[in-house]
């Protein structure tokens, strides 16, 4: 399943780059994407492994149980990645690729509208750190389908969010920051 997803994304990248008649870049981008997807799935695997050690999260429980689960999982993840730092998932080449993909997503005729959707009610460039909890009061920035489908597909354990122009990879159960890409959205 994962291999097929990566291959599909590579095919998309290849098609996009072929239009620009730059065949060597196709393979480089595909390799970067494959490596990025592997790092994301490695994180997801760790998340799942650690979450299995906790009592199962009730799907219709009291908020105290949900909160306790979030905090317990975040503690486990932080302990399992004590030296996690910015760039572990989005290395320099992956960051550059993400910026190119987003620039491409926003370059079409609907680009201004898509950007407007992302920036509307966007909480702005709040300070975050890898392994740190998301700011409690920050609303979720809206991310349109047209943008999400340009980015690498994610496993259920993580999702994308924007804080200002910064793209975060967020753990959806622990609500901690896995990594981020500064200046991900073009100015």
């Amino acid at each position, binding site marked *: 399943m994962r291999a097929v997803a990566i291959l599909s994304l590579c095919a998309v990248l290849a098609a996009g780059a072929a239009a620009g008649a730059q065949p060597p870049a196709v393979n480089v981008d595909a390799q970067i994407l494959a490596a990025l997807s592997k790092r994301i799935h490695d994180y997801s695997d760790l998340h799942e492994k650690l979450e299995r050690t906790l009592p199962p999260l009730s799907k219709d429980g009291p*908020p105290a149980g949900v909160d306790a689960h979030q905090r317990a999982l975040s503690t486990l993840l932080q302990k399992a990645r004590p030296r996690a730092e910015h760039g572990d998932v989005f290395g320099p080449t992956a960051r550059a690729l993400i910026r190119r993909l987003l620039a491409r997503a926003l370059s079409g005729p609907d680009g201004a509208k898509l950007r407007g959707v992302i920036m509307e009610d966007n909480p702005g460039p709040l300070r975050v750190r890898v392994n740190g909890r998301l700011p409690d009061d920050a609303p979720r920035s809206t991310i349109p389908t047209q943008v999400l489908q340009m980015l690498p*597909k994610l496993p259920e354990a993580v999702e994308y969010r924007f804080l200002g122009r910064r793209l975060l990879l967020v753990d959806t159960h622990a609500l901690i920051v896995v990594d981020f890409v500064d200046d991900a959205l073009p100015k």
Partner: protein
Amino acid sequence: MRNFLGRLVLFIAIAGCAAPGPTAGPVEVRPQSAPPTASAPEVALPNREDSLKFAVLGDFGDGSSRQYDVAAMMVKRRATFPFALVALVGDNMYGSQTPRDYDRKFAIPYKPLLDAGVKFYASLGNHDELGQRFYEHFNMEGKRYYSFKAPKEDVRFFAIDSTYLVPEQITWLEAELQRSKEDWKIAYFHHPPYSSGDRHGSDEVVRKTLEPLFVKYNVSVVFNGHDHFYERVKPQQGIAYFIVGSGGKLRRGNIDRGSPLLGSGFDTDNAFFAAEIDGDEMFFNAISRVGKVVDSGVVTRRKPE
């Protein structure tokens, strides 16, 4: 891999081979031409024994006295109009979302309704944290998007997460709409495809993504929030759109009265929405914080032409 191929074949079968059936004609909306007055009284909810009675609420969870007032009015109205469920169109909670906040911003103000067995079905707005999916009173069963069949009448609701419209959600929605054989298909989510609001207004990106599916699969009614007022939009593409983003927050005077979309609007106080489906008709009242009916009418569902 085999599992993936199996799902791929299933997806192709659903998306490509199965005919969706005929697209139905437009809804018919018979509204009050203006807020009810003594000479033009409201369209009363029939309150029939076996009909589906429900409410819609959005943008409410701020813990304010206004939210508590609207909640109290819902309790009061339910004494004579016993709605069974409440569809939440998002921004169920603002600001911090600790266990105490769940009490202060939800469980306490709506306790009489919860105690009476009313079920709330939440969709997520941009202020809602993902932990809400697991909250006992939101009936989301851990899902960001889901559908459910109403306890009465031939009605299915589709709760969508419009803040994070991943392609998988669109695929799910199309399959779910296609599978649904109910007469009434009602979608609800946070961002309004059509709105006369000055602050947010129509979300054209969401519209472009979702509306073709609503048209194709005969959705009759769509409920949204995000703009902090009540609006009945003139039917668009044969579908009735309502904005009920006035359950606690209020953006006073925010409706553009010159908007060609505007069917009826109320932006001077908070409000919730009460509806009753009986056969092919949905009777509705928008009810203000102080109990005044500020809009009412009847929607006849889309039917094959």
